[in-house]
């Protein structure tokens, strides 16, 4: 287990993670970042807004950013119509 910090950045601003969480590995932290983005976007969609400008930076205890997960990586966005 390693302590990872998931820092959120979007159009509104930045939300640094001061607490961190013990997570198995970087891939597991990536999965948590994806779930977090979906959770946040879901809340916004209920208010009628979907803004994919944003990202979660996964950092270690030294503050080094190990991976960047853009909001767009968390959802499959389809705007095309169904062809009949």
């Amino acid at each position, binding site marked *: 287990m390693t302590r990872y910090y*998931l820092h959120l950045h979007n159009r509104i601003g930045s939300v640094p993670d001061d*607490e961190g969480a013990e997570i198995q590995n970087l891939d597991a932290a990536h999965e948590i970042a994806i779930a*977090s*983005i979906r959770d*946040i976007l879901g809340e916004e969609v209920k*208010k009628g807004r979907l803004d994919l400008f944003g990202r979660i930076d996964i950092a270690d205890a030294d503050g080094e950013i190990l991976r960047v997960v853009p909001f767009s990586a968390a959802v499959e966005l389809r705007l095309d119509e169904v062809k009949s």
Partner: protein
Amino acid sequence: MIERYLLKLRARAEVSAEEEVALRSAVSETRTFPPDHVFVRRGQVLSHSTLLLDGLLCRFKDLSNGQRQITELHVAGDFADLHSFTLKRLDHNLMTMTPCSVALVPHTRIAEIVRAHPRLGRLFWFSTNLDAAIHREWTLSLGRRSAISRMANLFCELQVRLHIVGLADQAGYDLPITQEELAECLGLTAVHVNRTIKELRDRNLVDFRGGRVRLIDLDGVQQIADFDPAYLYLDDAQLEQ
């Protein structure tokens, strides 16, 4: 030892000196547990109930994929699993969130109390009904409140419940839990919780950090929470009828 429990009872009903003696003598032993310790597991057969003397604990249920939903927080003075007196096995788990000191009350003694003091029996019944009312409010929050309103409602609820037992005032209270644990109460991810905390702070309503809830604008928090303390039944419980 059970002072906070008596404070909680007396916030709603009178407890006579004789009843107090009966309650005090119900405790068979006390134990201390470290944080994050599951001390009652779902399905485990129980012969005693747990009264929380000091600390913070939770009830939770979980899915096979490990996702956990905390369904209620218990503060000092809560007779946390009085439910097991009638259920014998719980459908959920009880876990400490901080170091906890608990009193164990054998079910046999609860049975004796209920026989000898029917009024205390009604008080026990009231207490589990109160837990059910809290669960209903959490259901309303999880189903219908926005993330910010849901978090604000929990902060308001805990202010009232901790105030009864002398652990909160208008300015705030200690809440030494992580954002991850708060997320498990609110059905959110920890990142979403972090963002929601920041929003409450930026709006000058409440600040949660370092294990403390600072109520900057209690009226404002209650407003955004759509908080109505009626479900905590702080008026006379009318147990004399």
